[in-house]
Every structure is written in structure tokens, then in C-alpha cells.
């Protein structure tokens, strides 16, 4: 082994914020369904605390032995709407509290899967879950929620979008920050380890370990070394760096799964920023050659970055899954926050960027008086991008009562701080209020 190799690895961790963003244990709850919500809730608590009992201990030991920080330990479960088929909105609280209590008992950072899949229509459990969200997200601490409202196969459920616009407003009326724990998806993936959108799909094995890697700082440092060189050199550099980062994720995931005695699922090779300086996707884009993220060329640079991360990572891992790409959450990325404050990065540009990267409009604060139908229309636009282009898109938008454009809202910890962004003030109400279902797009005659 060469010394340069050792120094490189140590520097990646110490100076470039390389970490494993999350080790997420996916747990199926299909075998917990019992006669009453109370009994089911008891079974849920039991199953989670049995399988995830050692999750935190094992990951901490791995951190220690390999000198690589694992930022979060998380759990994802089967979408609760499927488990709670017969429940009323009030009874949904039993399930939510079972998840919250179990997460606290085993010491994880978050538990995801308080979710409903309504791309084609609502079942009783779906509606009960959505109606319970304002209470659940404010009465529990660690429970994360997602609702899938569209897919390339099923089209877009406009009724669900309307309902989600209203639900987001209702959540805001109870808490300014609770919306950070909920995301609205199109084409949601079943093995995503990242929050708020993690859930354990019904086609997954009973219990698995999924890993999300991170490391925008490492990519930025690598690109610094190829200043002025042609763009394909940048692509190659990102690929090589993504390979190294993903190898760490693969190793940690395989080891964690082995020590916990469960199956190893996937590595999600996402570049996920944190609010720390030097751990920013915006800074990577700026290093590629943009004066500030949000200017012309941003979408092209992001497309290259997103694609090169996938290409480098795919070969480094046995099985790749999740969202895999670059994340662009505003509040969690120091460079994005700067660009919004400077008036360079707009909502319209962010929307364009979501067409070429792994998620969507993420962690964006908007004024509290924004109409529910306007929020719904934002969700509809994002869903349209995802559904038409066969990719995942998401909206995690944060209306804040009493906040004006430019105010800074603090969400705490990894969720960061977001400047309130202006929205277009013309109404979309008549469009949203039509309700119904946008048909699935045709996928021949592609132009």
C-alpha cells in the first residue's frame, strides 16, 4: 500500500467532509397487520425494536474501525397507508406514535415510511394518512412522511396534488418547520435511504440495509485540480471521485449488513450537501466554471455532474439504487443559500435544474400567504417533469406564516436555514380545482 493512498483517504475525511450520509435499515411491516390499530401498532414497535436494536451500536463501531463518519442512522418501513388500510385519521396516530417510539427506543435519527402511494387513486388508508399529517408531523419528532402523487405508468393524480397543497398549508398553520419532514413525490423509488422520502417498498426483502453516500466536498476538491482543462476531463474526474466515494459506501453497507445479520440492499450514490461550508453541491457547480450557481450554464453543469456521479458509482457498487445523483436542497447547501440571497438563483431555475438531477424542489421556504392551489401547482409542475421524463421528482416546500421574501428560516441541524423565496403571484386555482387525473404520457414517438 502506498502512503499517498493513505493520506488521500485521511484528507477526504478530515478536510473534505467525506462521510456516509446514512445507513438506513429497511423493515417490512406487512407481517405486523393485526385486527385493530392498537394491536398492529404494538406489533410495529416490536418488529422495529427487534431488528434495529443493534443498528446504532454496529454503525458506531464501523465508524470507529474505519475512521469514516456515518452522519445518520435511520429506519425506513413499508408505506403505513398499506398497513393501516381500515384506519380512521385519528387512529393513524397509533401507527405514527409506534414508529416514533420505536425510533427513539433504538436511538436512530429518523424513521421514514409514514407514506401513501396515490398516483392512481386513493384507498381508505391513503386518505386517512394524508388527513392525519398535520397532527402526526407536529405530534411526533422523528417520523418522516412522503406521498407519491404521480408516476410515468399511472399519470398524475391532480386530486391528490390539490389535497397535498391544502395539507401543506394545514401543516404550516400548526408549525413553521414540520413541512421539512414531508415530501411529495412523482416516481418515488422503493429503496431510497434518504429522508424525508425513505420508505421500504413492498417488493423489497423483509429487512435490508441501504446506504447513502455523500461527499460534494471531495468532488469539489478533485475538480479544483483540473482548473482550465476541457469539460470531459471534469467528467472523468467526477467519475473517478464518485467511484472512490461509492466504494466506501459499498464496504460500510456490506459490513453493516453482515454484522446485523440482514441482507445488504443498495448503495445510493448521491451527492448530498450539508449546511457546512465546503460540503456544497453549489460549490461543485461553481468550481466547474460558474461565477454563481443559478446563472446560465447551471443546468448543463448539473447534468454533467449528475451523470458522471452515476457512471463512476455504478461500477463501484454491487447494487445501486435509491435516487443516485446530485441533491439540490436550498436550505442544506451554503452555496445555494448565497445564490438565492444574491438574487441569482430563482425558483424557475431550480425547477429547470430538477429536470437533470436526482430530486426536485427541495427545502425551499416561501411566504406563508402563498395559496394552497399555488403550492399544488408547483407540485404539478415538478410531477410533470418527472412523469414525462421517467425520473423521480419531489417537492419539499416550506411556507412560513408571517415570513416575507428574504427572511431566513432556521430548520435546525442537517436541515439548515432557508431564505424565503418569491413565488409568482398569478393564480393557478382554476387549473388545480378542475381535479381529476392527468393521463400517463405516451412513450413512443419521442422527440
Amino acid at each position, binding site marked *: *500500500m502506498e*502512503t499517498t*493512498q*493513505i*493520506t*488521500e*483517504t*485521511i484528507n477526504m475525511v478530515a478536510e473534505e467532509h467525506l462521510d456516509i450520509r446514512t445507513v438506513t435499515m429497511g423493515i417490512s411491516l406487512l407481517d405486523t397487520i393485526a385486527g385493530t390499530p392498537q394491536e398492529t401498532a404494538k406489533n410495529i414497535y416490536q418488529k422495529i425494536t427487534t431488528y434495529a436494536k443493534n443498528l446504532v451500536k454496529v454503525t458506531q*463501531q464501523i465508524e*470507529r*474501525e*474505519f*475512521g*469514516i463518519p456515518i452522519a445518520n442512522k435511520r429506519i425506513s418501513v413499508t408505506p403505513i397507508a398499506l398497513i393501516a388500510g381500515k384506519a380512521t385519521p385519528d387512529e393513524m396516530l397509533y401507527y405514527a406514535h409506534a414508529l416514533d417510539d420505536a425510533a427513539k427506543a433504538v436511538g436512530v435519527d429518523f424513521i421514514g415510511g409514514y407514506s401513501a402511494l396515490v398516483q392512481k387513486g386513493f384507498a381508505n388508508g391513503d386518505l386517512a394518512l394524508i388527513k392525519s399529517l398535520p397532527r402526526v408531523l407536529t405530534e411526533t419528532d422523528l417520523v418522516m412522511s412522503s406521498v407519491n402523487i404521480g408516476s410515468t405508468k399511472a399519470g398524475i393524480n391532480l386530486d391528490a396534488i390539490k389535497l397535498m397543497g391544502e395539507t401543506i398549508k394545514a401543516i404550516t398553520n400548526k408549525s413553521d418547520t414540520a413541512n421539512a419532514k414531508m415530501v411529495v413525490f412523482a416516481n418515488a423509488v422503493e429503496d431510497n435511504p434518504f429522508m424525508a422520502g425513505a420508505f421500504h417498498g413492498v417488493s423489497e426483502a423483509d429487512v435490508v440495509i441501504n446506504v447513502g453516500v455523500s461527499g460534494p466536498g471531495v468532488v469539489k476538491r478533485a475538480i479544483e485540480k483540473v482548473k482550465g482543462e476541457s469539460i470531459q476531463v471534469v467528467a472523468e474526474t467526477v467519475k473517478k471521485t464518485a467511484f*472512490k466515494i461509492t*466504494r*466506501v459506501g*459499498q*464496504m460500510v453497507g456490506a459490513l453493516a449488513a453482515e454484522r446485523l445479520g440482514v441482507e445488504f440492499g443498495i448503495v445510493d450514490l448521491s451527492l448530498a450537501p450539508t449546511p457546512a461550508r465546503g460540503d456544497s453541491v453549489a460549490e461543485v457547480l461553481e468550481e466547474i466554471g460558474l461565477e454563481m450557481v443559478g446563472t446560465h450554464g447551471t443546468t448543463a453543469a448539473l447534468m454533467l455532474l449528475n451523470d458522471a456521479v452515476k457512471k463512476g458509482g455504478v*461500477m463501484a457498487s454491487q447494487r445501486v439504487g435509491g435516487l443516485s445523483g446530485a441533491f439540490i436542497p436550498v436550505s442544506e447547501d451554503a452555496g445555494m443559500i448565497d445564490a438565492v440571497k444574491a438574487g441569482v438563483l430563482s425558483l424557475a431555475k431550480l425547477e429547470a435544474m430538477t429536470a437533470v438531477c436526482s430530486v426536485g424542489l427541495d427545502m425551499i421556504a416561501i411566504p406563508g400567504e402563498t395559496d394552497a392551489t399555488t403550492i399544488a401547482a408547483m407540485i404539478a409542475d415538478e410531477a410533470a417533469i418527472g412523469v414525462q421524463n421517467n425520473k423521480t421528482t419531489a417537492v419539499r416546500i416550506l411556507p412560513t406564516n408571517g415570513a416575507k421574501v428574504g427572511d431566513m428560516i432556521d430548520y435546525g441541524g442537517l436541515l439548515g436555514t432557508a431564505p424565503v423565496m418569491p413565488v409568482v403571484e398569478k393564480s393557478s386555482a382554476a387549473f388545480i380545482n378542475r381535479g381529476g387525473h392527468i393521463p400517463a404520457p405516451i412513450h413512443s414517438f419521442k422527440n
Partner: protein
Amino acid sequence: MAKAVVTVIGKDKPGIIAGVSKTLSDHNINILDVSQTIMSDIFTMSMLVNLALLDEEFNKLQDDLNLLGKQLTVEIHTQREEIFDAMSRV
């Protein structure tokens, strides 16, 4: 056979190698390879050591070496070897 890499980085002063070697020897650990340089006053050393008998006691060794690092005001990392291989080999 499990191996670990012990890296030491910091301002050069007497007793660094002695201190690290003594701690390793106290834990009955065999040093397999050493590479050491001084670049403009900064001491850098990597040691490959044998952990075969020490799987259980890894944490204790790491604690002792961290403590030694504090005493010597140098940075000491103790990591299992696989992490370095994982990153640089296909």
C-alpha cells in the same frame, strides 16, 4: 488476518516513534511495515500493524493511541486496512 493502519501527523519532536511503538507493544501488536518522512518540520508516519489477536480490543488500542496523540500533540488515526484498499482498488 486483520490489519490496521496507524498514521501519525504532527510537528516533529523527540519520542513520537518511541511512544507509538511502546503503546503497540503494550498491546502485544506486531508492526509489519513502517513508512516515515519529515516534510518541512511536519512528521508523517504510516504503520501497518497486525490486528489478528486484537479484534475485540481494537477500541482499547484506539483509545490509548488517541490519548498518546493528545500527550504528544500529534494527530493519530487508527483505521482498519480495508478502507484504504476499498477506495483505490477495483
